[in-house]
């Protein structure tokens, strides 16, 4: 137990929670924007994989991490649009289209990697670049908080910022309101001239774009290469985080952080010689538990209210 606390109460641990959270947070926000428009995007896994590779390839070719990021974002947006095309134009069930896209991404990235680098596992033979880390002046001087919050990859800060941007976007801007309207009552949106499909298409494109930051972070921040199936389920976890967060930006952020905490914990806990496989289950179990607690709380609220409504009557009569 002492060892356990020693691990958790270190600044390095806090630092790694944020780092691990970053890709999940991007993906959760990506899930959120499409979910709000009424389309569930389970292709985040594939989109992140594709954009992770895109970032690596273009940063190698252009000798610039920023251009790599730019291309990844373009690619992610295009992939989101592709999903939109499948779902909205060709009318494929969106879950099936996403499963197809994920399969395509998993094999397709390796196919492309092999064509370009001659490797089937990892891109380390390419001299790809990483995005810079940022030391925040002043903040990094503060004890405890400094080492936890400062010195992260630039995308980690962007992820945190994105939570607020997303909140603003969804609740304060016309497009955000349209997205919510389309998700809640598409016919109503349609009848006031908001193109439902158009809005959903935009939401999916945005979703792809946001997820692409997560993908780029994986290969140009988290690590410095692309490797086979490197997203390892983070796109799925993000869906759970978004659901757990009640489809709100702040909620999704907190849920992602929770997952990040358990994931970081699972990486450290092994040092205490807890069975590795057991430890690796923890984040997933935590996510399911969190999801159930959240939905159960919602359901309980309803039950309690039913009982209350029943009771209210008695003094009246």
């Amino acid at each position, binding site marked *: 137990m002492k060892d356990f606390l020693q691990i958790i109460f270190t600044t390095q641990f806090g630092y790694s929670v944020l780092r691990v959270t970053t890709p999940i947070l991007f993906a959760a926000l990506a899930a959120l924007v499409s979910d709000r428009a009424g389309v569930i995007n389970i292709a985040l896994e594939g989109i992140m994989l594709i954009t992770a590779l895109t970032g690596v390839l273009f940063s190698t070719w252009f000798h610039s991490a920023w251009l790599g990021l730019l291309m990844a974002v373009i690619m992610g947006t295009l992939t989101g649009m592709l999903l939109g095309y499948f779902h909205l134009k060709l009318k494929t069930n969106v879950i099936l289209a996403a499963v197809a896209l994920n399969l395509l991404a998993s094999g397709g990235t390796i196919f492309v990697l092999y064509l370009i680098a001659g490797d089937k596992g990892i891109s380390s033979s390419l001299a790809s670049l990483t995005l810079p880390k940022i030391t925040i002046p002043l903040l990094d001087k503060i004890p405890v908080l400094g080492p936890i919050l400062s010195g992260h990859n630039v995308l980690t800060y962007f992820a945190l910022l994105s939570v607020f941007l997303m909140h603003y976007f969804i609740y*304060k801007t016309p497009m955000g309101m349209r997205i919510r309207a389309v998700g809640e*009552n598409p016919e109503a*949106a349609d009848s*006031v001239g908001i193109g439902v499909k158009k809005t959903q298409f935009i939401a999916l494109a945005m979703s792809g774009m946001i997820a692409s930051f997560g993908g780029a972070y994986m290969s140009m921040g988290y690590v410095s290469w692309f490797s086979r199936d490197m997203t390892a389920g983070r796109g799925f976890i993000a869906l759970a985080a978004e659901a757990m967060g009640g489809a709100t930006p702040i909620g999704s952020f907190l849920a992602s952080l929770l997952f990040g905490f358990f994931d970081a914990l699972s990486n450290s806990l092994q040092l205490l010689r807890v069975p590795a496989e057991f430890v690796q289950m923890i984040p997933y179990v935590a996510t399911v538990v969190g999801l159930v607690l959240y939905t159960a709380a919602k359901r309980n609220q309803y039950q309690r*209210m039913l009982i209350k409504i029943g009771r209210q009557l008695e003094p009246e009569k």
Partner: protein
Amino acid sequence: MPDDAMLRMEKITKVYPNGIVANNEVDFSIRKGEIHALVGENGAGKSTLMRILFGLEESQKGRILLNGTEIKNESPHIAIANGIGMVHQHFMLVPSLTVAENMILGVEPKKGLRIDLQKAIKDTRALAEKYNLAVDPLAKVQFLSVGIKQKVEILKALYRGAEILILDEPTAVLTPQETKELFSELKLLKKQGNTIIFISHKLHEVKELCDRVTIMRNGRIKGTFNTADVTPTDISRLMVGRDVILEVEKDAAKPKEIVLSVTNLVMANDLGQRAVKGVSFQVRKGEILGIAGVEGNGQRELVKGVTGLERIAHGEVTILGESINRKAIKEIRNLGTCHIPEDRMTYGVAKEMTIEQNVLADKYDSQDYTGRILTKPRAIRDLSQKLVEEYQIKCSSPLQEVGMLSGGNIQKVVVAREFSTNPQLIIADQPTRGIDVGSTEFIRNRLVELRDEDSAVMLVSADLNEVLELSDSLIVMYEGEITAFFEDASKVSEEELGLYMLGIKHQTPEEIGGIVYEK
């Protein structure tokens, strides 16, 4: 009269992907500043024509001329820009947004990047005042009554600068009093220079409000007349193609023992608010108890409680003496209950299944149709064949998918299934909504027949005509409570009923208590 037409639709033909020809070479025109009625049977193609005008559907042929120039309303967006507004048959509002937010949806005023909500609220207030349509801009739409929602819908259209206003069956869910209010508002609009297309099944309303009327049947136009020149009988003959008598012939009821007994029932609605507030009543064998009321006054939740579809928050429901509070739907059905649901597409059928499979829905575990393991296809075939004939369901065979049938025929499938189990208690929720005259007649007669065969019938209907016509006795629901009980429904007038439905009149608890025959 091509010269005086403000808007002309020419040779509009619309075929839905399922092969239904909803509009067939339709020519339709309106003049500036008139209120123009569009009437026709269910499925005649009225809504379709208007949806084409409003850009929600695309026609395969034909064109639209506004003030002589062709316009292409490819989306509502363009239609709105062309000064056309539409209030739909079903509300088109986003429940979680406020009135003001609904008003501006799609045409949001902006301040920088964000929505300028203050302006939206101010504009809504101003507009409401100008047209005398009182609404609270800050109220969330999900908590509004139907009447107010209707106003919001009209304001929405006006906010978008509509000069031509399409109203698709706006009075279907309103009380006579609310209807009257709406009419005065519409007349005000007309005075201020707007043009209105008004769709209704109620011909006296057409006579009262409209300048001209266009009649549709089977996707074609049957003619356009000055309302002053035609009688309702003329119109209905043109609509249906024959004379219709919608009078149901029935003898006085001979009620026997109590079948359904509801005591102090409390139900919640989807939002967790109390929707039924301690209601008690009883229905006896051999009678039809009508439940009248404006939609949204707790009838839906009442039906859900009585049929076991939702949990009862408080109180008790018994059928033939057995409490159903803790019973599963199957057990309730096994007590001899059947249920014609209000929304047939959601609760009444599985569209993708065949008629045969749909008919099986409440009897799949009966020995007659399934053995120990396998189903008995022959028996199922025979039953559905019989029902199709008996109920005159128009279809190619019982193997046709239900989704391919017209609304009236879908309703007949539901009714045939539900009535085929010799029910003790029939819960009929809006049994003839949105279906044509022929089918309506058929279903109403069948209900009376079953009553005469000693079934107990609880009839919920927002159609005043229907409740008055069919019910033996009658209760009125307002805001989740029973506000009136009439032992003999034939003694009540439509106007009087309206007063109770609006909550303007209220009987004493003693009078209402008459509906409980025995404790």
